């Protein structure tokens, strides 16, 4: 195996191919604090890409309730369990989060899915993974939020309501799509080299003509975002709505548009973009790119399970109310700093957070025009100061897409039009 540098785990790691990086990388930030699991993203994706026969169980975009749920069921529990078995008691991080772009979260000293494959038999297998059962794929969100009724009684809700499941203490919604990883496990596992990463935007695609449906990618992807289609006998996955990214969607006017799942997000949790890459695979400094700012400057957005080793390009602002041990396992050691900054945002962060979902166009740069101080208070011993700054978003062509302010207007419908559409 080749040696590649994975900045998310802060060290060199083994990978079946030499490192090769795109010029720009498809990436996104999801603010979990805002997600209400309305599944608008899920349905936007489903109704665009996976509505055909044979795709019934496919949800390229899904939202699951953590810690109870998962699609496919138990995906993260199972892969974490496999890694623990492979390297028992040693899946730890060392060092501290730092300003070094080559190891911003410290160093992961355990084994990634590429390194833990030594436990596999036959030893020709390249990546540690597992193939979910049909049952695990079939019922996204089962037993998460829905009332299930009495044990053993099917298709009937509990009459008294007293036995509805109650999430004791905490839970949160985790929205997921393919992470279009920098070191994709699906690509590494494919014996036919049918999976490729596009040099122009880092989107990972399966060549439908080359694929023979061996399902090695399904087995290898730790996030379980490649899926097998029985009636065509090939695998399929999220294509990052690439016609939109390329600006070929009729409504785009030639400018890159965000994916369907992003633009459908009514909770305004999602922002997606294209980030510039250095030749060594780190993000090129682009100070006023909103994703660069959130991931590398404010450091409020963190990769999902960075310890898997695929260098996922999906980043999450962790939910502030969830016990830290759980979050550290899910997002790595940067969690405490991220929550501290998100809970007490500085002036710039507060302005950048307003950029989420004001437009369907991809934002390439932002600029902040300072406004007056509008609010000052104390909460939990910390001072809150809010400025009504204006944040301006620019597109790929350098032209302004929109401008918005920190102070959000509240629109009240007149009573005579309360139900008008």
């Amino acid at each position, binding site marked *: 195996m080749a040696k590649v540098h994975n900045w998310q785990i802060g060290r060199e790691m083994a990978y079946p191919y030499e490192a090769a990086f795109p010029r720009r990388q498809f990436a996104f930030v999801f603010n979990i604090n805002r997600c209400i699991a309305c599944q608008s993203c899920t349905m936007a994706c489903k109704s665009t890409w996976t509505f055909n026969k044979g795709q019934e169980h496919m949800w390229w975009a899904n939202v699951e309730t953590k810690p109870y749920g998962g699609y496919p069921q138990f995906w993260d529990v199972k892969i974490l369990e496999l890694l623990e078995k492979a390297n028992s008691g040693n899946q730890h991080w060392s060092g501290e989060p730092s300003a070094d772009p080559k190891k911003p979260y410290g160093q992961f000293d355990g084994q990634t899915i590429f390194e833990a494959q030594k436990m596999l038999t036959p030893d020709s297998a390249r990546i540690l993974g597992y193939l979910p059962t049909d049952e695990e794929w079939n019922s996204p969100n089962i037993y998460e939020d829905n009332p299930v009724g009495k044990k053993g009684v099917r298709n009937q809700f509990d009459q008294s309501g007293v036995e509805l499941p109650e*999430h004791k*203490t905490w839970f949160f919604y985790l929205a997921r799509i393919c992470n279009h990883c920098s070191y994709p496990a699906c690509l590494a596992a494919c014996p036919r080299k049918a999976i490729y990463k596009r040099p122009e935007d880092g989107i990972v695609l399966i060549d439908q003509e080359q694929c023979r449906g061996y399902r090695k990618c399904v087995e290898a992807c730790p996030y379980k975002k490649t899926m097998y289609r029985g009636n065509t006998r090939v695998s399929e996955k999220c294509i990052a709505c690439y016609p939109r990214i390329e600006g070929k969607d009729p409504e785009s006017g030639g400018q890159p548009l965000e994916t369907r799942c992003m633009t459908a997000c009514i909770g305004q949790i999602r922002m997606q973009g294209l980030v510039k890459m250095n030749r060594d695979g780190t993000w090129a400094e682009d100070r006023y790119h909103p994703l660069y700012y959130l991931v590398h400057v404010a450091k409020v957005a963190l990769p999902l399970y960075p310890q898997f080793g695929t260098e996922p390009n999906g980043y999450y602002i962790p939910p*502030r*109310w969830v*016990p830290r041990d759980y979050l550290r396992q899910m997002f790595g050691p940067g969690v405490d700093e991220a929550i501290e900054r998100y809970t007490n945002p500085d002036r710039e962060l507060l302005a950048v957070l307003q950029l989420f979902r004001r437009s369907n166009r991809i934002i390439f740069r932002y600029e902040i025009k300072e406004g007056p101080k509008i609010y000052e208070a*104390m*909460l939990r011993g910390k001072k809150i100061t809010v400025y009504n700054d204006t944040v301006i978003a620019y597109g790929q062509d350098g032209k302004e897409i929109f401008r918005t302010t920190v102070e959000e207007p509240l629109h009240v419908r007149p009573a005579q039009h309360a139900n008008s559409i």
Partner: protein
Amino acid sequence: MPYNDPDPTDPNVLVGVVLPADAEAMREMAYVFAEEFVRMGYDRKFLLALFRNPLYAGAHGAYRTLGEEAILTIIDECLAAWGGIQFSILDFGLPIEGGEEIQDRKSKIQNGGRER
């Protein structure tokens, strides 16, 4: 629907499992609920009613664990911080029916979220 009911002996099945969380996690959740609803214009009375209501399971869970006194402290702290936010209500040239009610609510909000 899945083919089988969940197997309670399967360690992966988390249905009905209480995950460890200390009172601190509860407090964090209580603050999140209180802040959210204060920012939406809830006053002390409405917010306490929400925490007392068992149908708001998360908030009520915090209420049960921390007790009413602690919840009231959290509510008051959040009201002191965010209760003074003023909503600017713009109309679009249409007469607003029930305008008095809105005015009443607005003045409550301006009054730090407390009843006049």
